[in-house]
């Protein structure tokens, strides 16, 4: 299946604004982020804390909806999903 990963601000500067990746069906958010960080130490440093968990300040959305709690890692991706990764917002 194909998942589009969108990145913004600091994260965009590291991995680019959009990556379409091919995953096995049922891939978790955590696995998808890990795949991305294999290609980029900078992304790994930005996205994960020292224990290897998704850092608490990283905001994640699937198809424009914020995901929280356990879903930030265990959430399951589906074909055509858009996963967005970004730092805390700072508009206005």
């Amino acid at each position, binding site marked *: 299946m194909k998942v589009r990963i969108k990145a913004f601000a600091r994260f965009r500067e590291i991995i680019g604004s959009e990556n379409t990746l091919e995953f096995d069906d049922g891939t978790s958010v955590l696995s998808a982020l890990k795949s991305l960080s294999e290609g980029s130490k900078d992304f790994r440093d930005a996205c994960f804390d020292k224990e290897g968990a998704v850092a608490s300040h990283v905001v994640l*959305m699937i198809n424009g909806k914020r995901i929280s709690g356990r879903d930030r890692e265990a959430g399951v991706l589906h074909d055509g999903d858009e996963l967005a990764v970004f730092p805390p917002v700072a508009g*206005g």
Partner: protein
Amino acid sequence: MIRLQQDDFEVGEFIEEARSRGTGAIVTFIGIVRDDGIEGIELEAYHDVAEQELAIIRDEAMREFPLHNVDIIHRTGPLRVGDNIVLIVVSAGHRKEAFLGCEYVIDRLKQTVPIWKKEFRKDGEHWVEGE
């Protein structure tokens, strides 16, 4: 009207449009690029989601307070000191709810709308940390 756009906005036009027959008060907020030693900023947005979040905030504000109209226009792209960033126009029957509605919108906007700000200074550039 809810809109994310590169272009500047004309405040007067939105204020004219915000007026309906029962309107007794219009409160407007304009956010501006403040000169605290920066040379300029660049605003980046998760465009569709940001517009969607702005519409949610407008709907929340109109549920919470008896408002007649809420417009939110937020700019993106490169901006200089003194440029407009965001316009919020809130109309209501009475002044108290117009003020409350307008403050609600800007406070929520800063919490939830996926827009980021990079500041350019003489000694380099950096992303403004959100809360």
